[in-house]
């Protein structure tokens, strides 16, 4: 998947890369002009009584080479290295796109800080592979080919073969070490991600850590992680530091062979001293690019390690996908749930079993039940956060799995149990970043959620920036903003999942009254522990251990004297 992305990217931007590589060659070629110009100048200077004009021309050439070197290098670097930067950002966006379609079941397995490291650190390693390392490799390979050809042309083919003798060994060595580097770099990246995650988690949980004075122990635990990071890094460098010196040593074998055998042949008069020196010169020329390829291998292996890590994520297919083509949520539709059972992936206990429900359009359903009885699960299934079998849930007669995901979810306005707010302005939070709402609508939603006055008391009113997860608000304020966020959508189905738990009774009463007004004739689901929140519903169901154990109106259930009655008596 990551590889496919790279190919697609190259296909899209091949022209820029081609031009860049062309300029790269041009730059190398221009640099080879330098010795020639210098040689010519020296030749001119050698002649007694030379004309300065000739020298000036040569100096002019030198300046020209300087300018051309600058120009060509500037162009190829911008194209090739800049291209890798573009790739970095495109890849990050592709990853983000992917993150956005992955389902909750993925997020309950993976950790945030860890995922962030993929998006920043691993992508960076991929960029290093495709930018600096690739250009260095192209340069190196070009120089090697150029030199080998020149070498074969200028001297004995046997000597040339001799020079290339260690090459197979070098390649084999690079492959072996490269694999080890890759493995160890993967460990480095993994540890890095763990560190990033630990820091993230410890910041999010800082209030608990402080409340229980756990700071010292946490630092100690972090140090252990830190040691692992050091260990992983050292282990990698232990291998990667071998690359260049070993390659150089291998290569020296040709050097030494040339020294001994070539020297012998000079003495035997088989080749001239000039040939010998020239050949030596070529070997020196080869050494630098071969060693640089060792460094390239290092970077490339790291990039490959990160790419394969990225694949672990990019290859995860979203569990929940568009089911069918229906692109609009039916207006004024009833909800039917037929014998719905559900177990969370990996759990051996059903969270819901045999749920049957009919919510006629425009009615209000109240759901009560013990902690962990499956109330929130039911809501998540209605919104298809997890997969549901065909024929289990229907909206206005249309199966849940016939909808496009966005169409389905746009039909809902959810007030989730944990009030997640973004660190954006209050107004953006209420709009949930969607356009198309007038300021009046925002204000009205806030009023309906009984939060308008508190918000206006904030320093910048609705424009006040919230801290992360809304830290600078009280629990009840957060919850009511979250209610306003659902109300402003004027959804076909409004779902309040324990959405009044953090507000006082007086405010609760006001909000419920507002709801009755604005939700008149609209479908509404209210999950609550306080009876006061559900007693006016058209129907109330009581869940226990994933089953509906009782249903009816408040009055009916009171009369029944079952579990519902018990709850009422306790309040």
């Amino acid at each position, binding site marked *: 998947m990551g590889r496919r992305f790279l190919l697609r990217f190259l296909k899209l931007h091949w022209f820029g890369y081609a031009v860049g590589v062309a300029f790269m060659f041009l730059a190398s070629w221009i640099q080879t002009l330098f010795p020639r110009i210098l040689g010519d100048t020296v030749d001119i200077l050698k002649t007694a009584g030379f004309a300065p004009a000739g020298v000036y021309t040569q100096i002019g050439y030198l300046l020209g080479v300087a300018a051309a070197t600058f120009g060509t290098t500037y162009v190829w670097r911008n194209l090739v290295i800049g291209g890798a930067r573009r790739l970095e950002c495109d890849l990050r966006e592709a990853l983000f796109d992917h993150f956005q379609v992955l389902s909750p079941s993925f997020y309950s397995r993976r950790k945030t800080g860890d995922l*962030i490291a993929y998006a920043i650190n691993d992508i960076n390693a991929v960029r290093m592979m495709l930018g600096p390392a690739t250009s260095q490799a192209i340069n190196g390979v070009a120089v090697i080919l150029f030199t080998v050809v020149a070498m074969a042309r200028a001297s004995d083919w046997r000597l040339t073969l001799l020079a290339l003798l260690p090459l197979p060994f070098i390649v084999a060595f690079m492959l072996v070490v490269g694999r080890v580097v890759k493995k160890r770099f993967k460990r480095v990246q993994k540890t890095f991600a763990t560190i990033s995650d630990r820091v993230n988690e410890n910041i999010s949980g800082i209030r608990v850590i402080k409340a229980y*004075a756990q700071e010292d122990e946490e630092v100690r635990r972090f140090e252990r992680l830190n040691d692992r990071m*050091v260990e992983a890094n050292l282990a990698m460098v232990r291998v990667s530091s071998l690359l260049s010196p070993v390659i150089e040593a291998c290569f020296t074998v040709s050097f030494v062979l040339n020294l001994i055998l070539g020297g012998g042949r000079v003495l035997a008069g088989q080749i001239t001293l000039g040939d010998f020196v020239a050949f030596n010169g070529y070997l020196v020329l080869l050494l630098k690019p071969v060693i640089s390829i060792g460094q390239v291998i290092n970077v490339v292996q790291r990039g490959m390690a990160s790419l394969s890590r990225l694949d672990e994520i990019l290859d995860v297919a979203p569990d929940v996908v568009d089911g069918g083509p229906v692109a609009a949520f039916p207006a004024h539709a009833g909800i039917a749930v037929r014998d719905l059972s559900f177990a969370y992936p990996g759990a051996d206990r059903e969270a819901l079993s045999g749920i049957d429900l009919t919510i006629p359009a425009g009615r209000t359903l109240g759901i009560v039940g013990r902690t962990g009885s499956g109330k929130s699960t039911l809501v998540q299934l209605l919104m298809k956060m997890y997969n549901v079998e065909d024929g289990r849930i229907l909206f206005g007669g249309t199966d849940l799995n016939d909808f496009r995901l966005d169409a389905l*979810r746009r039909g809902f306005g959810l007030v989730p149990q944990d009030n*997640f707010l973004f660190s954006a302005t209050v107004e953006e939070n209420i709009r949930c970043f969607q356009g198309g709402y007038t300021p009046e609508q925002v204000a009205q939603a806030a009023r309906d959620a009984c939060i308008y006055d508190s918000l206006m008391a904030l320093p910048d009113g609705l424009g006040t920036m919230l801290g992360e997860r809304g830290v600078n608000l009280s629990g009840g304020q957060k919850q009511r903003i979250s209610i306003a966020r659902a109300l402003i959508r004027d959804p076909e189905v409004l779902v309040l999942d324990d959405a009044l738990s953090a507000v006082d009774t007086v405010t609760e009463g006001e909000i419920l009254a507002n709801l009755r007004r604005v939700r008149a004739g609209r479908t509404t689901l209210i999950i609550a522990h306080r009876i006061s929140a559900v007693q006016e519903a058209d129907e109330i169901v009581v869940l226990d251990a994933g089953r509906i154990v009782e249903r009816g109106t408040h009055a009916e259930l009171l009369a029944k004297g079952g579990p519902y009655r018990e709850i009422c008596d306790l309040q």
Partner: protein
Amino acid sequence: MKSATSSSLRRLLSLNRPHAKKIALAAFFVLLVNGALLLQPYILKVVIDDFLTQHVAQQGLYSLPAMGILYFAVVVAAGFFSVAQVNLVNQIGQKIMRGLRTRVFRTIQLLPLKYLDRTSTGSLITRATNDVEALSDLYTDVLMSLFADAFLILGIIGAMLLIDVRLALVSLCVTPGMFAVIFLLRTKIKKNFQRVKRLIGRINGFLAENLSGMKLVQSFCAEKEKKAGFTGLNGEYFKSTLFQVRMNSVLRPLSDVFQNLTVALLLWYGMGRIGASTLEIGVLYAFTTYVKQFFSPVSDIADNYTTIQSAFVSADRIFELLDQAPTLEDLDAGLPLDRLRGDIEFRHVWFAYNDEDWVLKHVSFHVLPGETVAFVGETGAGKTTIISLVSAFYAAQKGEILVDGIPIGDIRKRDLRRNISVVLQDVFLFSETIGRNVSLNDEIDSEEIEDALKTSYAKVFVDFLPGGIDEPVMERGSTLSAGQRQLLSFARAIAHDPAVIVLDEATANIDTSTEGLIQKAIENVARDRTTLVIAHRLSTIRKADRIVVMRDGEVVETGDHESLMDRNGYYAEMVQGGESVGENPDDSPESSSGTRGAAAL
């Protein structure tokens, strides 16, 4: 800005001090490697001059094969020293990084909430990760090559000066121009790095927020808008990095350009002297070679320039955070207290999170040891704030808070907080096992954990988990129901056997029957402890010894349930507000959905 960098530099260097010996050893290895580099051409020269040109007789070690082997030996030795050097420097670098990372982490842990509330997680995370990593690049890639380069440059300048002072000066006179260009670009490059790193921090924060809120984004179909936000940020980052590439594209060819310029100048100057026969061509030619050798390390330094700049900007960012040291919480300062009695008194306390936006206004109350006191009031009245003050998370601006009769600021924070267990309104669970989430890092054996789980009725669901108390909790407890998370956080508080228990909406997400059971259990646990309770479900607090009624940051009433009801004030109003509907179930029967839409099913 400049002073920030130079002091960062000084502080960075001071980190090396403990490793001075090893660094010297590494530097020595660098010299050895360089020496070997010089030895290689010399061996070649001996072979060519002595054996191949002058045909000196070979004998023993003074022979062609021996020279070849010597050559090989020199390369191997140089390789050995360079491996040793790289590993040594890396060890030092990693040690320093480890130290920095821990210091950054410690600082983050000890920052006061006042600071943390206003700081984005992303910018803190990147300091402990990417910024430290940028410094690590300095060690692994740059430091020793810089040393070797400086060594080479000095050697070459020396050689040039020895041969011909005037030519040497001519050769060197253009180089300052190159450094002038770098110097001119310096501010731009640095500013850009600051921007790049700030943006990486923001991207980090954006991801942190959106990945943990992904479910919400998906339920609200806000993917497109969030993507737009991300693209904006990422695009800004892209632009800044492109600028960096552009700057690099100017810097990298610079040494080639200046090398050509220097040679051109040499030729121009030499031309005159050769014309006047005061200079030999050979010397001039030799100088062009020296110039080439001279520019090789110079270009190295120029290439590394951006890495160095990047590292300095990261160092600035790290030290900026470490400079918060004076504001950090000192858990160990103050009066040690083993066990609190649990006497808590507020005397005319005023508190504001910012400036003068008073959240608490002359709040006074006195909680006696062993008492259960409830705080009620409309949302945003300041109840959570009061308990934050009791834990000394914030300091009151005016008035006095006394714990066991001692001003709270004088008590050792560690002792204070260990004695107070808070069940926070926003439950936080760590990605650890159930057991560790209860015990945290403290030594609480599994029996006590089980007891705590039993008391909080969390055991009911924990027993159903395949791993029991060893079952891992996913991030923030995402695979548990909200109520279950709250039960665990409750168990955590109980297991720590505190002198004071604070329950902030601790049962808000828990069903009434479980709550009732917990309450009975708590009554046993809390018998001789001070208990502070905040609850909106007023049924929960009816039995409290005293109820403090808050409104708009002020205490408006205090008393027990009966006396407050008798007063018929704000509290009575709230109780009735909650019950009015409850007591008259037929009050507005089904009127809510007056327009009974045709059932579409």
